[in-house]
């Protein structure tokens, strides 16, 4: 029994990290159609902010979360204004531009903060472990799970129940017609990009106590995030949730019975097969074309 519980918890922990990293990407990609290859760098910058605030100003991680969200969101806003908005409807150019931004960000961080690996101290109140139904899990991992679900819920509510969310859904379906009804799509895009960046920054800050913080850390997360979004279905938030849960639990289970190398390979193979037969992903919004 405790084995089953601890296996489920492990999978949930993997899923929560995937969800955190993919959520921002899913929002940006889903609404604006921008393939943001600099997404991993937003994650990395979030982690560096956490490290900086902790080592220079002595802030605890929990206290700095809101600040980090705002800082990275502001950065996302600036990038949208300076670069991205000139490139909508030019998918190839946005891929190149965001990739270039990512490389530049990595090097800027390397030059200013140094190339050393860094770490962020876990909040003392969460550094213990908790017993759940006979299984032990790290309190911090459960906290990350709760935050990931909370963020998802908040995003979903904005999307579903606010007038801003309604406008977003309208733009997603057809930008030209939404604009002709008086929706300011440029502003909506800008806010979406900033929000997605902020969430990525938050993800970076939250995973920083469990991982190492380095200028290159973002590259692995951007791959994971795209896997989740592609599998879940591009314009579906629920799809993102479901596919992080499926990917997390599956890779946790495979890694337990074989090892992480094989788990990673098998999961990738499964994704290739699934999108071969369901190119729109697991959850595709039903839209009348």
């Amino acid at each position, binding site marked *: 029994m405790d084995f089953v519980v601890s296996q489920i918890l492990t999978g949930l922990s*993997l899923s929560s990290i995937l969800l955190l990293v993919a959520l921002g990407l899913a929002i940006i990609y889903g609404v604006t159609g921008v393939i943001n290859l600099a997404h991993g760098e937003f994650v990395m910058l979030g982690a560096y902010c956490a490290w900086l605030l902790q080592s220079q100003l002595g802030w605890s991680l929990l206290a700095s979360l809101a600040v980090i969200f705002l800082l990275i969101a502001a950065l996302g806003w600036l990038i949208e204004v300076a670069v991205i908005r000139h490139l909508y409807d030019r998918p190839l150019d946005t891929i190149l531009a965001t990739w270039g931004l990512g490389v530049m960000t990595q090097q800027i961080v390397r030059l200013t903060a140094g190339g050393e690996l860094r770490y962020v101290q876990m909040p003392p109140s969460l*550094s213990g*472990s908790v017993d759940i139904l006979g299984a032990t899990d790290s309190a911090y991992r459960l906290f990350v799970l709760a935050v990931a679900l909370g963020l998802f819920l908040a995003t979903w509510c904005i999307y579903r129940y606010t007038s801003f969310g309604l406008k977003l859904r309208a733009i997603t379906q057809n930008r030209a017609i939404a604009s002709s009804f008086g929706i300011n799509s440029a502003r909506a895009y800008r806010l979406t990009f900033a929000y997605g960046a902020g969430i990525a920054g938050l993800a970076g800050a939250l995973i920083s106590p*469990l991982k*190492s913080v380095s200028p290159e850390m973002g590259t692995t997360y951007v791959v994971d995030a795209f896997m989740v979004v592609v599998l879940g279905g591009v314009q579906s938030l629920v799809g993102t949730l479901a596919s992080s849960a499926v990917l997390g639990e599956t890779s946790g289970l495979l890694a337990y019975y074989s090892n*992480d190398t094989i788990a990673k390979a098998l999961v990738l193979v499964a994704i290739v097969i699934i999108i071969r037969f369901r190119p729109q992903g697991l959850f595709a919004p039903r839209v009348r074309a």
Partner: protein
Amino acid sequence: MSLVGFPHIWSKNSSLAFAQDGEIKVGVLFSLTGTTAIIEESLNKATLMAIEEINANGGINGLKITPVVEDPASDPATFAEKARKLVLSDRCVSVFGSYTSASRKAVLPVFEKQENLFWYPTLYEGRECSKNVIYTGAVPNQQQDDFIPWLVEKFGKRWYLIGSNYIYPKEENNYCKKLLEGLGAEVIAEEYVPLGHSEFSSVINKFRSEKPNVIFSTVVGDSVVALHRQYRAAGLDPATMPMASLTTSENEVAAMGGDAAAGHFTSAPYFMVFDSPENQRFVEAYRSRWGGDKVTHFVSESAYFQIHLFKQAVAKLAASDIGPLAIREAVKGEEYKAPQGLVKVEPENLHCWLRPKIGQCKPDGQFEILTQSADWLEPNPYSAYPNQKCTAEGLKEV
């Protein structure tokens, strides 16, 4: 230099002496950019510091050592290209450099073809026998012969082997399994994670359910930081299930934080806290040269002492005889009082006799040295392969 107007490469190499105009050129080949720059930068610093020390004390028989520093950018192909440049165009008499096995393998053909000499400071997996490389880091038998029995006796016989998925961990584990078999201990799992892997929750789950006595970790790079931090977050206890490593030095501990490393064990020929007059001098010099917060570790110590071995070898030669092969012959059997204690170059396989120590990490990021091997240990790069032996004539089947 004498043939004005001709590209240098056209002049006959043999007509030029390596020691010219009161200086001898050596190559320094450590990555200053790219993924392994963090650690290689410290090796570059230790190398340059040793060269400066020797030059400040009058050089080698009046000859100044001139370092030619190149940045191979953590890329094996660039390593090979820069090595060729240092050997052919700069005419360096030796090159000191590289950290990863991949980069060493990339430069090896250059030194073997040009009959030059490469000095490699890193501990590595062994199973290499080149007449053109001086290896000053440890090989598996030197780090494991004392370490494994000590851990079995202290903690028990159920071992979990976890490593990064490439050649180094597999070779170390080959030797470790051999030792464990001789001790009647049991390997309950041998597992490899991809390089750069940072999610260890499944692995930690297995630690929990398998309850090994010792976790033998050959996980390297940023993965090692993630493994230690997640081990600690999971609430596992180093007192009953310690991780034993051959690569976790002061440098890695600084990256993961002393709290995450505390209680785990490392075997190495050198620790920063080692108490010897030579080490005190080394640490003080390093910190006053490069900054008071810098740490020294067992690879930077090798990078430092190998320059002094080079100096001793060159000092035995007449200026006109100085050349890579003459230096190789002169360094055979050479001894030097390094920060870790007395070291010696084994004439047969050009690896070094070293004195391994077992350290336990403390929360302040330094190690406490628990034991030291009674005598220096002979290097045997083929320790896991008893029917092969590296000799001065090359690899022999026995």
